[in-house]
Structures are given as structure tokens and as C-alpha cells.
């Protein structure tokens, strides 16, 4: 039986076993990963897998079950478990499934050509990438290179007559190297992920970034504890974006568990900050024609010139808030319930070049590495470990490592005073270089 027919049949099965409403989420996956070290294969892993999740409602109460054994006995038993679980649960009027039969047209989510490329070529690419990244004499060791690919098929059906499917693919290649100098050790890594095999960046380009990251923080100088300008590299913008995304999660807002809960339509950040989530962009790993519960995806402006414009919702949180789903139901595979998440989030670009931003900085840190959890979405506090390049009088003077940076999210976001024009839209979380007027640095 075809998976789409099986999905439809399973919805009916849920109903005949006692559900008042039901949703079936079926997923098939194929994956390959190759890791190489010192020009030799280290691991090759290959698999095909599948699984199905059942969300059922009984008297307004919800139950969920999943299994990866698609024999009919196992499927029936799994559905019965969900229904039995539902009976024990609490009724919730917000337990709803979508009626939206729409399907957003998104171009190029699947590349049939990935499988066609021979295994030997993929192994050789990883070995070549490793060798290229080792070319810089300051790079002393390899921590390995790898190639990975995957294909998946998503099938969603529900008792409101929804039956949808799409296929997607992805491939990625990356490398990690070590630079040593005396007792110093630094690692640097870079990878590239694409929907289409032929869109992977040239290996030279990936290798050069990895080696640069490993060597650029050698010979750091410890700085004093002080307040200074912080210039965020696009690589570390996620440290702030992650907290904002968690803070606009519609369910957390309804629960009062967000630092942005009272900010709708208010100016909470610098007017230079505009953030958009776009699930419709072609050739992107973050895009899809519909979200994790079948609602068509959209392009949503979340923050416009510093004003909060939209929270993000799945069906349940939207019903509770009295709004429409924003198409942001996210799913971590067939074994999870729909949560809330973004597709492709990006910060709109500004007018300055990166060099202009550095040149305009009297004293500050060009932040290249951040560790820690970023902004705490509940309290809105930010604290992290940091490394980068110290800037004085508009020029980079030396690397800095082993320092901390911290502040309150509102102060940081209002403090954005320059935004770069170097936005790379091929990332699923993208931002240009931007500058924050002042943050606390912890040093000696």
C-alpha cells in the first residue's frame, strides 16, 4: 500500500477504534553519513526508516502514540494506546485540528540527484575538504571531515478531510581542524548545508573558513572587566535570535513565561531591527508547503523597525489566543507532538558594510564566538562566554578569548545602533553583522 493511502486508512482506523477526531503523521527517511579522518574513512552509516504518530481526541481530551513497526497488529495496538491515554487526560476546548486544505507553493525542496551521485565521490569530497583545510601551515591537526545526506517524505492526514504530503532532501559537508602554537590550541569548523547537491559551496571556500576560524584567535590578549561596544558577527547572531524566537512562542506568551509577553505592537527594540520568518522560500531546508499539522506556511514579519508585530502559533495556541495559526507548528519527527517553531528566520539587512561598522567603533569587541544558552526567554537575561577580535579606534588590534559578556535583553536589543548589509540568506537563521552600543564584559 502507498504511504498516502496508508495515512488515509489509519485516520479511519483511529475513528473506528473510538476517536472523535484524529490526525496521522507518517514519515519515511533515508540517510547516509560518511566521516573521514586523516584521509581515511572513519565511519559510514546508512539507514532507511519510517514511523507514524497518532494524535487522537476523545471527548475533547487528547492522547498521542507512535511506533516504527508498520505491521497492522502493531499499528492497531498503538492507536488503542493513544485512545486509552486520551480518556485519562483533561478536556481542553483548544484541542483542534486544521480544516485548511491549502498548500503553499514552495519551489525546489527535493533533489532527486543526491542519490544518483556515487558513494566514492562523496567520500572523496570529504577527504579533499579535509586536505584543503589542512593546507595552512598553522593548522596542525584534523578533527575530521564529513558528508551527510537525507531524504524524507511527510504524510499528514486528519479527520477533517486533510490529506497532504511532500518530499524533501538535504545534504551537507563540513570539516573541523585544530591550530596549535606552543601550549595554545584552537579549533575551527565550517559546514555547508543545501537542498541540492550541486548547490554545495566549493570545497576551497568551506576549507578556508574553517582554517581561518582556527587560527584567528591564536595569541589572545586578556582584557579588563569593562563596558564596551559589541559587534555581532553573523555566526553569533543566533545567540540573540534564539531567545527572541523562544520569547514570541505564542504558547509561552499565553502562559506568561516570556519576557516579550506584554510587548505586542510596542517598540521593544531599536528601530534598526526587523525580523521575518519565511517558510515559503525555495531551496531552503527550513521551508515546507505546510507546517507540522498541515497548515499552509507563510511569510510573517515578526518584528518591524523594533516593534513587535506577531507571535507565532500552532492550531492549539492560536485557538486559545483567539487568532489564526501562523503556520508555525513544528515537529521533531513522527514521535513528537506538534510544538511551535520557526522556518527561516532572518534579520533584515542594513546599510553599512562590515568594515564601516568596525571603522566606526572606538573601543569594542568584534564577537566571533559565544557559548552558553543566549537570552533566557523567561527572564530576558543574557550571559555567555565570548571570544573575538578587539577593536580600538576603528581597527582590529588583537584576538580576545576567555571573557564573558552579559546584559538584559531589552538593553541589548535597544542598543543596536548599526546594521550591516552582509546578509547570507542561505542560512535558516540569518543575520547581517550588527552592533550593540554597550554591554558588560567580564575579564581580568
Amino acid at each position, binding site marked *: 500500500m502507498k504511504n498516502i493511502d496508508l495515512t488515509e486508512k489509519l485516520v479511519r482506523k483511529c475513528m473506528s477504534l473510538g476517536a472523535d477526531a484524529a490526525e496521522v503523521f507518517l514519515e519515511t527517511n533515508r540517510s547516509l553519513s560518511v566521516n573521514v579522518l586523516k584521509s581515511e574513512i572513519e565511519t559510514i552509516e546508512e539507514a532507511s526508516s519510517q514511523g507514524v504518530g497518532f494524535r487522537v481526541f476523545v471527548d475533547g481530551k487528547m492522547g498521542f502514540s507512535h*511506533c516504527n513497526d508498520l505491521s497492522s497488529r502493531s499499528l492497531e495496538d498503538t492507536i488503542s494506546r493513544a485512545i486509552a491515554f486520551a480518556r485519562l487526560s483533561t478536556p481542553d476546548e483548544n484541542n483542534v485540528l486544521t480544516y485548511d486544505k491549502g498548500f503553499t507553493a514552495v519551489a525546489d525542496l527535493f533533489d532527486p540527484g543526491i542519490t544518483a551521485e556515487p558513494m566514492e565521490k562523496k567520500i572523496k569530497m570529504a577527504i579533499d575538504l579535509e586536505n584543503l583545510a589542512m593546507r595552512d601551515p598553522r593548522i596542525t591537526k584534523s578533527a575530521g571531515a564529513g558528508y551527510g545526506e537525507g531524504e524524507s517524505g511527510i504524510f499528514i492526514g486528519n479527520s477533517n478531510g486533510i490529506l497532504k504530503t511532500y518530499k524533501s532532501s538535504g545534504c551537507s559537508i563540513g570539516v573541523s581542524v585544530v591550530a596549535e602554537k606552543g601550549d595554545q590550541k584552537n579549533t575551527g569548523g565550517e559546514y555547508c548545508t543545501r537542498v541540492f547537491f550541486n548547490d554545495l559551496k566549493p570545497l576551497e571556500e568551506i576549507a578556508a573558513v574553517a582554517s581561518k576560524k582556527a587560527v584567528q584567535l591564536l595569541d589572545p590578549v586578556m582584557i579588563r572587566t569593562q563596558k564596551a561596544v559589541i559587534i555581532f558577527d553573523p555566526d553569533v547572531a543566533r545567540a540573540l535570535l534564539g531567545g527572541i524566537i523562544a520569547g514570541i512562542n505564542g504558547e509561552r506568551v499565553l502562559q506568561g*513565561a516570556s519576557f516579550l509577553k506584554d510587548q505586542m505592537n510596542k517598540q521593544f527594540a531599536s528601530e534598526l531591527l526587523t525580523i521575518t520568518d519565511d517558510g515559503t522560500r525555495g531551496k531552503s531546508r527550513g521551508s515546507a508547503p505546510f507546517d507540522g499539522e498541515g497548515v499552509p506556511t507563510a511569510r510573517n514579519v515578526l518584528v518591524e523597525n523594533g516593534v513587535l508585530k506577531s507571535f507565532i502559533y500552532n492550531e492549539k495556541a492560536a485557538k486559545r489566543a483567539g487568532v489564526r495559526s501562523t503556520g508555525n507548528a513544528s515537529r521533531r519527527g513522527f514521535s513528537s507532538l506538534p510544538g511551535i517553531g520557526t522556518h527561516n528566520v532572518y534579520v533584515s539587512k542594513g546599510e553599512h558594510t562590515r568594515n564601516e561598522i568596525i571603522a566606526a567603533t572606538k573601543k569594542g569587541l568584534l564577537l566571533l564566538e559565544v557559548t552558553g544558552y543566549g537570552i533566557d526567554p523567561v527572564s530576558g537575561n543574557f550571559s555567555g562566554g565570548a571570544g573575538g577580535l578587539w577593536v580600538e579606534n576603528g581597527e582590529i588590534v588583537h584576538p580576545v578569548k576567555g571573557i*564573558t559578556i552579559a546584559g538584559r535583553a531589552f538593553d541589548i536589543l535597544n542598543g543596536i545602533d548599526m546594521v550591516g548589509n552582509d546578509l547570507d540568506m542561505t542560512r535558516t537563521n540569518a543575520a547581517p553583522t550588527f552592533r550593540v552600543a554597550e554591554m558588560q564584559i*567580564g575579564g581580568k
Partner: protein
Amino acid sequence: MKIEKISVRDIPRRRFLELSMKGGLLIAATPALLARLTSCQRGSGRSSLPDMDKEMLSKVIAKALEKGGDFADVYIENRISRQIVMEESKFKSGLYGISQGAGVRVISGNKTGYAYTDEITGEKMMRAAEVASYVAQNSAATAPVSISETTRPSFVTVLQPLGEIADEKRIEIIRRADQAALDYDPRIKMAMIDYYDEIRSRIIANSEGIYLKDELPLLFFIVQAMSDDGKARHMARERLSNHSGFEMFENVAPETIARNAAREAIAMLDAEDAPAGIMDVVMQNGWGGVLVHEAVGHPLEADNIAKGIGAFTGKMGQKVASECFTMVDDGTLPNFRGTINFDDEGTPAQRNVLIEKGVLKGFMTDILSAKQLDMARTGNGRRESFRYIPIPRMTNTYIEKGKDDPADILASTPKGIYVQSLSGGSVNPVTGVFNFTCRESYLIENGKKTKPVKGATLIGSCMDVISNIDAVGNDLAFGPGICGKGQSAEVTAGQPTVRIRGINVGGSRA
């Protein structure tokens, strides 16, 4: 390499240890009884794997080594899980899951080939064996030893098998915790309770001739409490986890877990901005052990050592830490969350002293890295599920207790930060640079714990931190966590109260 936001503290910890001690005595006294108790199949007919046809598994292993190779194994797994989540006093979800499959691995020199299937049939496993054998092309062949039943001691006792517990009982535990959190203080606005249990059944057979089968039950109970007084908000967390039956909740009441979370949520409402810069840190006993788990434990896993890039490469037998520092990984602590009986390659779990009085004594190995480094297998080859290859992982990792009175450690620290609980952290195992986020911490002023301060990040390098520990308390305790290293593993981390001189604290004021 990350540890998820986790914490366990205070009262449950002490009970946790008492309980464990009892378990330890039991094992010594009645091994035969225990073997029966550990079986959780009663009343749950399909919860475990049936015995596999050994002849068929031998064929799969032979197929895997057909093209060459040094070693092959088959790992068959069945996991039945239940998760119930309550938020805002309502059941948000009840999840029931069955996940099963088989993986076949071939090791040839430094190369590993792996393939898995969701369908546990001879045909699919033969196909997986063929795919996995790709890496062994043109290498010397090893003849597999025919497999036979093998036994290992068990360190997990079960009195109330999870398969016999009605879902109503699980729900009652959750309701009790929710009520206790909300009753603690009117400023507790919401509790989020996550109940999880699973029974993982494994069969391991390999070309060295072993055939092993067992079941590990696991319980994980997390209470988060959110406080809001109109000015500040804090999400607190408390966890309890054991490899055990449902009796875990008789030994530690769900109300106790909930009140601890609520206590932290209220205490931190008054938190002030933390100071920034390098200062002394006193870490309270318990889950703070996650600091050594990350900062020292991960760099002592043998995979990066075998690659020649790990921070401790070439340092075996050398003094790497201060004299008062001894660190152990022990997969045999009775019923602990990190306890495994045998690892996912079939090697028995054991107590491994990693650093003894400051001297590096051992790495944690799996079969491959032990061979590469010509070291003994330590029972640390673990995997998240049949979808992953085994890699060196920690089990229950801790700083051995010292001689200092915890009160004296605090009193002799004039100024610094007292860390009562950490959310978690991560480390770069090559450079040894780590970071941790504090969830509950206080200023130390004149040797006393004073005002609460907001969650700050602590950073440093592993070599510095273990050299700068200058006081180790006599109050060893543990906390449960989830460790991530490309795949997740259940672990505990433990430590007595310790003082670390000179850690960089990421506060938001000078």
C-alpha cells in the same frame, strides 16, 4: 557536546543516596532474588524482545565479516516509552511510543561501517550486514566465534515493574506535584511537570561470541515552577531519575521535588545583577558535578584521545590536577540513572578511576578506541538507540569526596559566587574550554552566602579548573542529567562541595 538544562538538589539527593546504599547491600546479599526482580516483563506481554535465533544472528555476523574486517556486532533494541506532560494544571499530552530496530556494525582497522533497520527480521539484518561491510573491502578477514548465552551482573533492582503500573497512578503523581508547587507560594504562577518512563530491552551479539540480553527500566521526573511577582520572573527546575521501578516515588515524594523547584523560583525573584570578571566560586554538592562531567569527563573519553586531538592526549600518568582532586566514572552504582550493567557493546560496567590525587590514571573507552590505544575496555561504549553507533560515554561521573567541612569552605572564602545549582553547560573537548550557566547562585561576602544573583555564565579551561580546585568537601552527592554528544545518554554527575579559585563569571555589572 551539551548537557541539557537540568538540576537536582537538596533533600531528594540525600534520600537518593540512602536508597542507593540499600540497593548495594541487597545486591551483595541476594543475587538470585535480584535476577528475578530485574525482570519487568510481568503483566506486560510485549514489553520485551523475544529471544533471537542464535543461528540466524551468527549468519548475520558472518555476512558482516564476509568482505573482511576485525569485528562485527548486532544490536537489537525495543523501547517502550510513556511521557505525560502537565502545564498550567492541565494535561497537555500523554505519549505512548514503541521503537524497535536492529543495527549491524563492522570494524575494520580504524574504519566503522554501520547500517540499521526498523524491521527485526533475518532478511533485513542480512541486508544491513551487507551495507555495513562496505568499509571492510580488501582487508584481512577474521573468523567469527560462534555465539553463546553470556551473563553479566545487574545493578538495577525493581520492586514495582513499570509494565504493571496503571496510567492512573502516573497521573496521580503528576497531580500531586502540581498541587504542591502551586501551594508553596502565591507567586508560583505555573508548574510544568514532565513524567517519562521507558523499558529498554537489548540483545547484543558479536563476532567474539557473546549473546547478551537484558532490560533497563528508566524513570525521569521533572518539575519546573515559574514565579512572577510583577517585577521579575524565574523558571526553576528540579529532577529525579533512576533506573528502577515505580517505587522511586515512595522513596522520594513528588511533592518534595515540586517544593524544591518552587523554593528556587521564589528565592530567585529577588536576584540582583551578578558581578562580572574573575572571582572565586564555591559550588554546592550535587549536580554541580556536571562541571567536571563537561570540563574533565568529556576530554577523558578515549575517542578524541585516539584521534590525537583531545586535551589530555599524551598526559597519562602525569599530574594534571591539584592533589585533592580524584575523579571517578562508575556504571555500577545501584539504580543510578547512569548505571548500565553492561555497555551497549556488551562490556561489563565497572568503577573507573580517571584522575587519582591529581594524576591522570585512565580514559573511558569503547571497543574501537580501546583497540586503537591498546588499552582495556572500560564499559563506556554507549548509544542512544539502534539508530546510532556506540561511542565512549560517561555513566555516573563524580569528584571523590574530600576531607573539608563544607561550612568551612564557605567561611574561608571572603568574596565570590556561591553556586547552588547549574542549568548545564558544554565543553570543546579538544581545547578543554567550557561554559556553564548558573540557575541558582548567591554572592559570597565575608565568608557568608548573601544576596541571590541572576543566572551568570561561568567559563574557563579544564586544565585550569582542576588545578585551581583547592578545597573538596566531605559531602558527596549526585544529580541526574541528559548528556548530549551527537546522541544523548542518561547520566548522573556528582561532587562534594568544592571551591575553585579564579573562574570568569559573566555578570552584567562591574
